[in-house]
């Protein structure tokens, strides 16, 4: 299966490892993520300024995928929400669709709504499936406390995104748990990282971020795992700006990096050292927690056999 890989603006220049790790993991399941140079910004940054200008770029991206006959796979939550929003607006608003198609026609593009937008976690959970992922695992991590922060725009508003139950999401939890990591239940998991306020109201942006870092720490997190690229940059870059002491930094681990390690992909290939908050001791912590997935399976088999 091939997908048009939508990386957005932040990932190629600031979080290259997110794209590389996702591609490496997808490859293990014979899924190909095709890089499309022609994609442009999803439109999200301009949303505060003008709604129509926010929709237009996403429609162009959808039209490009359509022309390639591919569905889109997205990593960044904000890109995901923008693409989904554009789709839902155009499906209800024929005249806007005509207006935008008129602009796109100059480039020989047309939007009809054929291309689907998929979040990479949804592909892993729904298309590949937990069972298949578990079978492929070479290692499982043990005693590794992971605090996932979902990111707002992957879940809400539910009518637009259809990703998961927006109150009690299970997809990300299941995916983290299958690696053997201890998926922590913590206070900021479904809340905002503050990114949307960066550069507009920095004190508030930092407050929201600090609250999340403290919350994750209190729950005993060794790593924080943001799904959205904006959350990632908040935890990986802004955290360093606002933390007076380097030893207070909560290291960031991306989900495909965690899963990739368990699939036997090297930490170099997954770009672990490119996460600015991860030091050699953190990588050591992960590698030393890797163990055989077999014991676990045997135990489970025993458990099943016992009642019989």
């Amino acid at each position, binding site marked *: 299966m091939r997908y048009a890989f939508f990386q957005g603006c932040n990932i190629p220049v600031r979080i290259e490892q997110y794209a590389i790790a996702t591609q490496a993991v997808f490859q293990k399941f014979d899924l190909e993520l095709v890089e499309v140079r022609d994609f442009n*910004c999803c439109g999200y940054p301009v*949303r*505060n*300024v*003008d709604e129509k*200008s926010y929709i237009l770029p996403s429609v162009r991206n959808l039209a490009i995928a359509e022309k390639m006959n591919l569905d889109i796979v997205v990593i960044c939550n904000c890109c995901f929400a923008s693409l989904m929003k554009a789709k839902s607006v155009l499906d209800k608003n024929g005249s806007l669709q005509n207006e935008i198609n008129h*602009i796109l026609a100059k480039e020989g593009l047309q939007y009809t709504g054929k291309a689907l937008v998929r979040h990479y976690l949804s592909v892993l959970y729904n298309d590949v499936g937990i069972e298949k992922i578990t079978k492929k695992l070479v290692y499982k991590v043990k005693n590794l406390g992971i605090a996932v922060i979902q990111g707002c725009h992957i879940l809400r508003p539910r009518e637009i995104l259809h990703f998961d139950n927006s109150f009690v999401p299970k997809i990300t939890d299941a995916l983290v748990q299958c690696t053997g990591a201890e998926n922590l239940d913590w206070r900021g998991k479904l809340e905002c990282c503050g990114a949307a306020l960066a*550069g507009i109201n920095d004190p508030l942006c930092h407050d929201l971020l600090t609250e999340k870092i403290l919350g994750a720490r209190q729950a005993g997190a060794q790593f924080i795992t943001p799904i959205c690229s904006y959350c990632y*940059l908040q935890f990986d870059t*802004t955290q360093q700006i606002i933390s007076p002491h380097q030893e207070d930094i909560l290291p960031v681990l991306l989900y495909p990096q965690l899963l990739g390690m368990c699939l036997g992909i090297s930490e170099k290939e997954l770009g672990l050292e490119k996460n600015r908050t991860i030091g050699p001791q953190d990588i050591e912590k992960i590698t030393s927690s890797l163990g055989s997935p077999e014991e676990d399976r045997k135990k489970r088999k025993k458990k099943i056999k016992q009642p019989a």
Partner: protein
Amino acid sequence: MSFNILLSFSVIVFCIGLFLRFYSWFNQGIDPEHEKAPFLRRISCAFSGLLSTLFSKKIFLILQSVFADLVLQKRILNKSYLRWITHALIFISFLFLLFFHAFGSFTYSIWGGEYVSTLNPAFTLREVFGLLALCGIGLAVYRRINYTKKRLHSNAGDWTALLFIAIIMLSGFLLEGVKLSSYSTYEAMVEEYGYYEGEEALALEAYWVAENGLHSPNFREAVAPELVETGRELNQEGSCIMCHSSAKSAFVSYSAAKVVGPAAAAIGDGAAVSFLWFVHIVACLAFLAWLPFSKMFHIISAPLSLAINRVMGKDSDDPVNTLNRQMIGLSACTHCGACTVECSSSMFYESFQNEFILPSEKVQFLKKIAAGQEVSSEVLNKLEKGLYICTSCDRCTDICPSGINLRDLFIHSRYYLLERGIVETSMLSHFSFPLALAQKFSGSHLKALKAVHDIFLKTFQSLPDILSPVKIGKNVFVDNESYKSCYSCQRCTNICPVVRNYQNPAAELDMMPHQIIYSLGIGNVDIAMGAKMIWSCSTCYLCQEHCPNHVELTDIFYRLKNIAITTIEAGENT
């Protein structure tokens, strides 16, 4: 004689142009924070930077740049084969014709040879490269026209450059063609170098008519083959062969001779030769004089810019050399539009119709800003908006074939204009996010943000400022009518992480989320827009998701923000 005057004149203009350019490298620039360093300090910093590079391991980076960026043109190759071929055709042909045609005598003298323009291989190769250059021009024109759909802009300078080269090549071919066919030129040559009379003279002429494209009034009809054979022998034995390869080897000009020869003869071939010679020489010399004032200056500045790019990378902490580099970069822009074609914000250009959103167009204008030219405030406002509507994806910087650090140039320009008091409402967008991460010019950013905030205070009244009873209006909010379902349960306010963040939220936010919805309910959109709450909204959608009556709070806040910005922009323009 006239050639020498023209040549001297164009060389003088060229030198003045070079001087002005070099001077601007160390005299101009865009820096929001620092007073521009004086000229001498700029030069001394450049030299010390150069020396410390040459005497360190970084010299290898320069060698790498010469090989990869200059010889192989790798940055263009990575982008598109067609562009690489286009550029290579023009670039290689230019080099060949410069050294083996214009400077032929000099080049040959290096190995003690004597340059004879009508002898092979130069005779043929000149034609080959002239033709290749024309192919390159053709491809470049095709690209410029074809890519307008990708928002590529072409200006007068771009077309002039292509036209100049095309005129030089075409006039060269025509000149050669008319010369080959010219009877008066032939006569003059025979008079000077040949000693033929009567039958012999006629035979030689017959040979030149039959084989070398000469257009002679003595041979209006088919030439007798025997006469041609005699002529061939005379040509071989005599002095002609020493300086003339077969005219057929100049295949383009030979064909041109066949076509334009009769016409030239009709108007007077001597005059035609002088005229075309004049056109060709004037075109070449005018090109030389124009070069330092045009984008063709990239021939000198782009290799330098590319080498600096390798040595300094994207980040540099030396403010003086950053400015020097900025100016070298600006002078290396060829307005090729690669940045614009790849620009991630290009669709915002379609919606805002502001050409300054496109990086290539910004750069053209920033040259004026760097030179300190007077620009109207209207244009400056538009330029600042164009500078701000940028996703900071660095694609332009990574793609630029001249290795210009566009990212740095745009960051400097953005804050330079903000420092000059331009109010930019787009600061309230998420374009500010990467800027906050980069932490550059933080002081300028905060100051400019405050200016936007002040405009808001002037335009809208917030609830705490209103002393008289709040107006109940008729201006119903039509953009999203879900607010009508609100029954003031305050669930939105109770779940809001922003409200929770403050000890005294009313003081910090002016109004709580439910109050904003309530103000829409009573038809007072203005106080909703004046509330700090909408700009403090983290857009987490928790309120909207938890609203028992499906009021789309976050979406409504987005709409309010849009309308507030539009209102302010409209006010600014009146």
